[in-house]
């Protein structure tokens, strides 16, 4: 019985819509009578032209003009009209925006991101300014300007992002899943990275990146760096400390490998300095030899574990396997090689210390003796030569 009784109700509602629709169209047609004119301008000379067709296809196309322009009741309407308040309907977004870095409504009206307010499309629509593939360009309108970057003390991130692995995935491959600005920063409630609540606050970054890179984030959280950050030691690196925030490169690519060791060296200065004494480093500095061992080839990249942990690739029991990845035939004696030996430290590496001392004394001793010997010889020979020439000159 319930089904039968609801049928007239549906019919009535449909009829209401059917009859209401021409009225709506008429209301907009009335406005467009003036506003469709391509040359329509207000008193200040700004264009007030509306593309009716485009508006109808937009997400707000079902609305009447005065649904938003609610202060306009009659024709002709006054020159100055109250600006439209998007928050009337979009309260949630407005609330989010209120505490964000873009909260200044005068500088950041909704239209600064969503584009022409009469041609707003849903974010799934490729015509939308906030469609994933369009987001970087939309944000880049401000965040790609040196002047703007300078004014606010921010980096000019747009070019960095566009050249990054995310930027390439988005702009070259057209991947909707590629991280765009709002994937990390959010959309309305964007907070400064100094704000504890921000998705880009240091200790929140692993979670933010983990939204997509879940597996890597788990590895990271199991490693020494992840554990340190979780324990509140914010000196330890998070994703962006090694990969950067915007200029992220493919870490397996040659370009990244070639310039990557100083990243770890920023914090691990002593290890970096001793690494630079080794053949591994000499290989890596000279280019064209990207395979040579860099920090994470031995230590791992995300799940970094101390040598005392038996799961660590640099744990004594695993060294033959770890070194053997490059050095075929590596054996127990071979892995006694110390990739971070310090020949200047007598306590840590006594044998190496004395070898270096001996070699240096040999070098300095030999050269000192012969430099003195040869300089004296040169002076004496030249003296004799001049004397001989002078003697010849006297007796023609």
């Amino acid at each position, binding site marked *: 019985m319930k089904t039968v009784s609801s049928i007239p109700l549906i019919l009535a509602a449909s009829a209401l819509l059917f009859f209401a629709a021409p009225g709506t169209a008429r209301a907009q047609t009335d406005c467009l009578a003036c506003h469709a004119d391509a040359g329509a301008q207000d008193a200040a000379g700004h264009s007030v032209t509306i593309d009716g067709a485009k508006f109808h296809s937009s997400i707000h196309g079902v609305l009447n003009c005065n649904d938003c322009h609610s202060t306009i009741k009659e024709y002709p309407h006054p020159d100055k009209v109250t600006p439209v308040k998007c928050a009337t309907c979009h309260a949630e977004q407005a609330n989010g925006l209120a505490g964000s870095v873009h909260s200044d409504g005068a500088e950041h009206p909704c239209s600064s991101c969503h584009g022409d307010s009469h041609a707003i499309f849903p974010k799934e629509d490729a015509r939308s300014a906030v469609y994933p593939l369009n987001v970087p360009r939309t944000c880049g309108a401000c965040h790609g300007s040196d002047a703007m970057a300078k004014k606010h003390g921010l980096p000019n991130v747009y070019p960095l992002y566009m050249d990054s692995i995310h930027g390439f995935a988005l702009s070259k491959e057209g991947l909707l899943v590629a991280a765009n600005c709002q994937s990390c920063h959010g959309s309305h409630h964007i907070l400064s990275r100094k704000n504890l609540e921000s998705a880009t606050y240091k200790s929140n970054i692993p979670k933010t990146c983990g939204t997509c890179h879940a597996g890597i984030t788990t590895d990271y959280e199991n490693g020494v760096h992840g554990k340190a950050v979780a324990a509140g030691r914010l000196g330890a690196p998070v994703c962006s400390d090694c990969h950067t925030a915007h200029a992220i490169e493919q870490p397996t690519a040659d370009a990244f490998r070639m310039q990557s060791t100083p990243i770890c060296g920023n914090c691990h200065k002593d290890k970096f300095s001793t690494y630079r004494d080794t053949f591994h480093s000499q290989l890596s500095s000279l280019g064209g030899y990207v395979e040579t061992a860099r920090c994470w080839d031995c230590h791992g990249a995300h799940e970094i574990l101390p040598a005392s942990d038996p799961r660590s690739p640099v744990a004594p029991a695993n060294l033959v396997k770890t070194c053997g990845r490059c050095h075929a035939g590596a054996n127990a004696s071979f892995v006694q090689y110390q990739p971070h030996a310090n020949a200047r430290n007598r306590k840590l590496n006594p044998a190496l210390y004395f070898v270096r001392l001996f070699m240096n004394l040999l070098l300095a001793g030999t050269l000192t003796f012969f430099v003195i010997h040869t300089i004296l*010889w040169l002076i004496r020979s030249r003296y004799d030569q001049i004397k001989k020439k002078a003697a010849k000159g006297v007796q023609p």
Partner: protein
Amino acid sequence: MSDLEQAAEASREHSSAKGRFFMRFTRAQRYLHATLFTTFLGLAATGLPMRFSESFWARRFASAVGGFGSIIFFHKLCAVVLTLAFAIHVKDIFTRSWVHREKGIFWGPNSMVANWKDAKDLFGHLRWFVGLGPKPQFGRYAYWEKFDYWAVFWGMIVIGFSGYAMWFAPFFARFLPGWALNAVLVIHSEEGLLAILFIFSIHFVNTHLRPDSFPMDMVVFTGVESEEEFKHKRPQEYEALAAQGKLEARVSEPAPTWLSNFSRVVGTIAILIGLLLLVLTLSAYLRE
């Protein structure tokens, strides 16, 4: 007198001024030296960028020649050639001394082995430098020449061994302790550096750039030197040969013009490369 006659007379004067020439180095010895200095220059030019891999010129050079891969390939190539030359030299000494029972290889005036006279010559030479005594009468090989020879000999063994230990590290690790693998790089680079600094400064000056030989001593290229030079540089050997009546047996043709010119070009290039490497090495070393 016409231009041509003038030129002809000048050339006669020039040739008559040459006088007699004496053989000092055999063809085999000259080839050995040529192999030694070309591979040494190659080893130095490829080894220094590795030793000073952080310096701007090392990176420039590396990127110009195709990166580390080509540097190490050329370094190993030169090393193998030099090792072969060294092996041939050692085998030659062995054959001459033990198979042919040739006298005077390990002792006597023509030997490379240091003796009491060398010690006396060294002190005598030092005294002469400061005007405290007469110039010593040097024999076939003076003490600094013997030092050069043994420095190279020792360097060949030390640098060669440490180099091959790195090249075939897993193999050498079978009988070397672990720390030795760290030590070989220190030994190889420090000894290499010593060799480079020594050859490109001390050897160059002692043998080629000093006033008596300036701009270079051609004898190691051509094999012969003039009587005047022989008498001046190695008076003891000259006198001994004259006393024994063996001087005539050593008289030889002067070097053909093409050989002199060729040697001069090759020698100049070698010395210039060496001096350039010396400057780069010193600048990088002092900045370390």
